[in-house]
């Protein structure tokens, strides 16, 4: 998760405007995910079921690798599937600016 600083920056910059980062940890060991969250200071909500890529959410979203990213607008629609953390800000901003 070398992208953590990027997500931290987005969180700091846009949380006030209604942006929520939601982590879905795919570690097979929940304790390992907890440790990473703590060590890296990931201060946003985390769902971790300990089932890795076989967990319900990962299967529903066809996740085959990490990071896999989805940006949803205020109505819950998928507005972007950025290929990397660097590409998140653009679609996040567009969604925040949408009425």
């Amino acid at each position, binding site marked *: *998760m*070398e*992208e953590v600083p990027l*997500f931290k920056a*987005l969180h700091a910059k*846009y949380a006030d405007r*209604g*942006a*929520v*980062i*939601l*982590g*879905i*940890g*795919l*570690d097979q060991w*929940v304790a*390992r*995910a*907890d*440790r*990473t*969250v703590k060590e890296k200071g990931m201060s946003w*909500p*985390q*769902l*971790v*079921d300990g089932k*890795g*890529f076989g967990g*319900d*959410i*990962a*299967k*529903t*979203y*066809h*996740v*085959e690798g*990490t*990071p*896999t*990213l*989805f*940006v*949803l*607008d*205020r*109505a*819950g*629609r*998928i*507005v*972007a*599937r950025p290929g990397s953390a660097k590409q*998140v800000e653009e679609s*996040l901003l567009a*969604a*925040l600016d949408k009425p």
Partner: protein
Amino acid sequence: MHHRMIPRAFFSLVLLGFLGAARFASGQGTQPAANPAVVEVRETLDAARKEIDAYRAGGGKAAVPDHPATRWHETLWAYRERDPGSEAAALATAEAIQLLIRAELSDQAHARVEAVSADDLAWERLAAYLYYEGSARKDFAYAVAKLSEVAAGSSNAAIKSAALLALGRAQRRQGDNAAAVKSLESARHSAPESVSAREADGILYEIANLSVGLKAPNFSGKSRAGRAISLESLRGSVVVMVFWAST
């Protein structure tokens, strides 16, 4: 909408093949090692990949005529001519072309592809290689044209299905979801229960459920901090979903 999950292993194998891992060549693949001609082709391929890897590691350039892939592809192509229609010939044909594709020698690769008829068993592998070539070049025009031709012209269900699957993936990457859905549904119908059909199912599911513009599938759970969370409960917020794993 119901669906079956696609086995990740298949995608990984195709990808590994593309990346040049020696998995197939070293006899760990799914094919039995009993056929001596196939073993010989795999060994040749193994030697080719070793030399090409060394060439690359030494700073050798792609897309040049004296690339070692040129010579190795000739060697593999000779297997094709030795025993036409055999499993070894099909393997040698697809891998010869793949060597040219990876060396970015597109014109030569395409010239060889043109020599492979729609019923040639090489297409079971070659279809995916053409998709990956389009992906690497960010230009799917050749792949779409050729795969359409093979899908329409082949009388072999497995080939038809593999070609339609690769075609559907290429069309999706071109942004033409309607055409992709048509191809992928045909792939499913051509060879039900096949690996291609299952893979097509998975992509159809993605198009129907995970495309930009669609409502994201809801889920709920308890966060590690003990808070109940669902996508429904986050309406009104812009949500960045981050699937991650510790490294």
